């Protein structure tokens, strides 16, 4: 589904991403981990063609990411924000249209997601009137309104209470069952343990471990927290 081949990116001479290669098959939930400033967001932005790598290539479904159809990719960036003065429904429909979803289809899908995320009563309110958690749900809806085959979720659980985290996890499981590919970037190791088939850990722009989540956990005493501390700590030393 997604093939990243030796991509690098530097900002003002500092390498944010250094020769990263990944091959994520269809239907996989892939954990993309790393400490703050490791280069995760830069990599995700390159996959979305928001910024371009200095070297290397990214292909999605066999096509270069620069020319592939981005309307089938769902993207929930780490930095959140939506039009505060607009109505929830209008914002969702707007982004749906931008992702080439037909007007009638976008309304139907919006209603489905409003009710699945239990915000149907808030659909006609202004975004600014919603709590932070509910605004987060709206953003999630924007990410999935185009019925994506590849989803990039950057810290999707942040700001959600345990009940809503459970709802989100169920959605991820449903997506997996539908053979959709998901890249999950998070600092919550438990979520990776629960949801991800495979994962990689990057630090200072480089991959320091890559493989099946289970294998990595086994190698580090059955806990990803431990693996994270050991691997990142080792590199820092």
């Amino acid at each position, binding site marked *: 589904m997604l093939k990243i081949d030796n991509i690098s990116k530097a900002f003002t001479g500092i390498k944010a991403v250094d020769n990263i290669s990944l091959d994520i098959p269809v239907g996989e939930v892939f954990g993309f981990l790393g400490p703050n400033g490791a280069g995760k967001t830069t990599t995700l932005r390159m996959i979305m063609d928001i*910024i371009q790598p200095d070297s290397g290539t990214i292909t999605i479904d066999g096509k270069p990411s620069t020319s592939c159809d981005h309307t089938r990719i769902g993207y929930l960036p780490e930095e959140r924000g939506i039009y505060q003065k607009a109505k929830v429904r209008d914002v969702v429909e*707007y982004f749906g249209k931008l992702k080439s979803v037909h007007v009638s289809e976008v309304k139907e899908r919006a209603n489905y997601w409003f009710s699945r995320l239990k915000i149907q009563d808030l659909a006609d309110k202004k975004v600014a009137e919603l709590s932070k958690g509910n605004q987060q749900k709206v953003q999630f809806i924007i990410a999935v309104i185009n019925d994506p085959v590849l989803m990039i979720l950057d810290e999707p659980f942040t700001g959600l209470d345990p009940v809503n985290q459970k709802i989100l996890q169920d959605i991820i499981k449903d997506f997996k069952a539908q053979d959709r590919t998901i890249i999950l970037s998070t600092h919550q190791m438990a979520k990776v343990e629960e949801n991800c088939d495979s994962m990689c850990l990057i630090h200072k722009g480089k991959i320091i471990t890559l493989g099946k989540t289970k294998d990595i956990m086994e190698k580090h005493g059955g806990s990803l927290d431990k693996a994270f501390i050991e691997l990142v700590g080792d590199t820092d030393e």
Partner: protein
Amino acid sequence: MNKTLTIAQWELRRGLKSKAFIVSVFMPFIVLLISVVPSILAFSGDIEAKDIGIVDQGNGIYEEVAQHLNKQIATDEGEGIYSIQEYQTTSDNHDTLIQTLIKDNIASIVIVIQPDFMHKAEINIYHNDDVGLEEISELKSTMRQYSMEKRIVALGLTKEDMDYVLERPDVTVYEIGQSGDAVKSNLIVRYGVPGVFLWLLVMGIVMSSSMLISGVIEERSNRILEIMMSSIKPNQLMMGKILGIGMLGVIQITIYLVIILIFSLYGGAMLNIDLSPADVFTPNILWYFLYFIMGYFMYAALYVSLGSLFDNEREAQQSVGYLSLFAVLPIMLIQPIMMNPGTPLTGILSFIPLTTPFMMILKIGMLSAPLWEILLMMLYLVVWIAAISWAGSKIFRTTLLMYGKRATLKEIIQWIRA
């Protein structure tokens, strides 16, 4: 193209719902009212009854002057407004007496008719601070008229003779333009209408600037742009925004045209001036309309491009707000341009893209610019709008994820060249 139109539609809806747009539509008229109404009120007040003192220094004309004043400055029923009293002064008490009269409120105005009035025609007017400019001007003209009538009579002529001499010729001005036909010059058509359009465009741009900038700033500071850029290309985003905001300009000018139509239908009678819709809605109005829209589009493109360089509105307004000065420049220069429209200044300013739309409105109205020039300058503006949008999308793409760092001019040029 569909996505560009989606963005345009969103921007248009967002703009129409914003208070800033409603304010920007009506502000030119509010500013006009604020600047015109007080001066109308100030100069249309009736002269109030006052005590007036007249000191006639040996000319023996007190009675005549008093009668003249009572006749000229009178109520609607023909009764003199002033209560006039004669005072005699000597060289010893002249100054102190006048000061006392005014200071002790015995008289609000004292008119001193200097000796040998028939030859020297000198009058001094003293007044307290309750007397306004309009009243003084009225008194001066009344006394001037008295002096003229007196001299005419002294020459053995009659008042009718004076009226005959002073009658102003009825001058009709004709203008022969490119077509070679002599057309009766109409000041409203030639100066008034383009002046109004110029004013509306300036106000439209100045008032909308904060709305244009704040839209981009919101998307940047709320990180909405990142989601947008994952679905669309920067040039689509720029074009959509400019198109949407430009459409706001079209709506704005259409509202103005309706207001102007209503004014041309009823305003003439209200203000007692010769004005009809035919005076205003000449073929030139189409060009004013198009130049207004293009001017609006150009400033929208500029504000959207430059707005993306800033993280917060205050910073952006401070820096980009200077651009509005270009819009105000033609207003500041309108008087010399109206006095002498053929000056090289008009030509130079019409080639500076930021002032082109304003100057073309003036040139079309005042200089009867030929059709080829009107169309050529329109093409010139279209090229500039496209160039600004293209450069803007380059800036946009680079600044999208750049927070907390202000770009230098050198960097901006590098991004555009990249």
